[in-house]
């Protein structure tokens, strides 16, 4: 069991993983399914919904990407990546069969225990839906443990909608509501047109028995959180997944600070009452 010791004692060590499936979700968004090469490491790898991995491209560097697949199937690790940065642009050129490095999983994920017995309101914008995907899968595998699941998701244009088939599948489930909206109209768009916060008017929320999971652009989240607070939702029952530069994933490199928190290990999912003083502040 030397390996077990090595794995835990060097948080910088990366583990080779092979791309077993690659899907172009949008012109600048790709979904990669990774499988860790070492069977021992693969068997030991468990993650919590909302956690992320550091993905490595040899000779280029590392980037923090949330795990979007089902935490109950940890042998597959799906990552949805927007190809906009130095490392992600190279990741976007990799083909099926090529090898990446993985470190992880890191960070605090969604409050699956605290949400048990509650209705769950999921509010996401754009690629912000990615980190919540695993949490939704998790709840559907334990459907009786959670109340009504309401999913509100907004995109800029109809072409930005990814995971369409997963949203459709959830929509057909009992005790589940899915609302999609696009800022701009489109020929194939049969859903709402407008920003995601407009959907709040259509959704009944019981403030006393609802937990909120939210991820998207900060400006969207601030407006949404304000509206939900106004409707009586408690800050200690609302959770947001936040994004800053993360270079190490283990709270040591100093980049991802938001107030007193290192988002890579105190977050990325933060309970609203803890992070509220820092949200939307200039230069934070």
């Amino acid at each position, binding site marked *: 069991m030397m390996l077990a010791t090595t794995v835990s*004692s060097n948080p910088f060590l990366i583990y080779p993983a092979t791309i077993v499936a690659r899907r172009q979700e949008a012109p600048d968004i790709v979904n990669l399914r990774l499988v860790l090469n070492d069977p021992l490491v693969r068997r030991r790898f468990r993650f919590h919904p909302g956690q992320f991995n550091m993905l490595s491209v040899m000779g280029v560097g590392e980037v923090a990407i949330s795990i979007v697949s089902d935490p109950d199937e940890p042998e597959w690790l799906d990552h949805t990546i927007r190809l906009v*940065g130095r490392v992600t642009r190279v990741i976007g050129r990799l083909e099926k069969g090529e090898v990446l490095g993985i470190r992880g999983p890191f960070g605090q994920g969604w409050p699956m225990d605290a949400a048990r017995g509650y209705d769950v309101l999921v509010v996401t914008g754009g690629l912000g839906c990615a980190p919540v995907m695993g949490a939704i899968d998790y709840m559907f595998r334990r459907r009786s443990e959670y109340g009504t699941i309401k999913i509100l998701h907004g995109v800029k244009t109809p072409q930005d909608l990814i995971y369409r088939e997963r949203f459709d599948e959830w929509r057909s489930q009992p005790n589940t509501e899915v609302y999609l909206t696009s800022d701009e109209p489109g020929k194939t768009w049969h859903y709402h047109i407008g920003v995601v916060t407009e959907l709040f008017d259509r959704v009944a929320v019981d403030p006393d028995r609802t937990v909120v999971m939210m991820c998207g652009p900060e400006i969207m989240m601030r407006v949404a959180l304000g509206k939900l607070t106004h409707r009586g939702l408690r800050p200690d029952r609302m959770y947001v997944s936040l994004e800053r530069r993360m270079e190490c994933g283990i709270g040591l490199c*100093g980049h991802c600070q938001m107030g007193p928190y290192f988002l890579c290990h105190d977050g990325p999912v933060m309970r609203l009452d803890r992070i509220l003083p820092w949200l939307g502040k200039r230069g934070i």
Partner: protein
Amino acid sequence: MTNAIPQILPKSGFPRLIEALRAHHYRIVGPVVRDGALHWDEIAGVEDLPIGWQDTQQPGQYRLERTETTTWFGIVHGPDSIKRLTFVPREPLLTIERKAKKVTVTPQMPEPTPTALLGVRACDVAGLLVHDRIFLQGRYADPYYQVRRDALLVIAVNCTRAHKTCFCASMGTGPRAQSGYDLALTEFEDEFLVSVGSEKGREIIELLELPSASPAYQRQEQERIDACAASQVRGLQEQHRLPQGLYEVHEHPRWETVAHRCLACANCTMVCPTCFCHTVEDHPDLSHTRNERVRLWDSCFTPQHGMIHGKNFRPTIADRYRMWLTHKLASWIDQFGVSGCVGCGRCLTWCPVGIDLTEELHALMRENVDQATP
């Protein structure tokens, strides 16, 4: 052990301490004068020490001069804190090799020579303990730091002279080394008082069979250290209002006025004994089959520190200065239970424009925020 009576080591007997360290297989790194400043380097013996030299430090100013004295440790410190021995500026982390589709990853564990660090100031010992909290006592222990830290024997020198930028007394970190040292010396004209701070230190000093210092001698030592503390002209007066006090002045106009002077050169973060921000780079060879992943010092004053896919969360120098000062003096306390400032004063001395963090904090925390002046 640490409360044991200090012993007297005559300067003429100092080579015996060096021999004892060598017998324990330590190489000896001490303060040496080079390029007009004090640096850490390997020393062969007492003759390499900057005997007779003194430093003058002011915000934005550092001068060394040779004096008539025969003081061995007359220079308080230079731009290098001791962090470069444990949190090294360039640390190779991994070698990643690729042959066809097979990728092999090998950790590059450092193999440091056991090192006795001679002449460490109380502020730097305090800085080392801050780094121990960050790199060893958090959720993840850093194995690279651990290996280098374990190889270190710390021989502190208590300060009996402060300069204008020192404020360790107000931070509670000096002028006497508080803990975290193996041996601590206080310099007198012809001898040192030696205090033992650890079992490792005791094993070394036992070999020398030194006489104990009399109570009168110990009083004299304390008086010299107290006088050094009393001579310090700066202090972090508003400490008791931290961390919350700094969080509350996030919108203070002073951030803008200090940004007019700040060059964002990152000197303060490089010379700081506790600043720990780092970045990781991949350095591939020309054939792209072998890659070295290295950790390098980084600074929150660089534009890319707060950058994420094209967006910069801290676009202005005011944002970066606020990030640095608020982290150092406030959020550090929430994160690690101690201040990120040990009062060494290097960030004042080595700031090209002489920005004084004690003055900035004072200006930010004055009751009437409207009175802030450039």
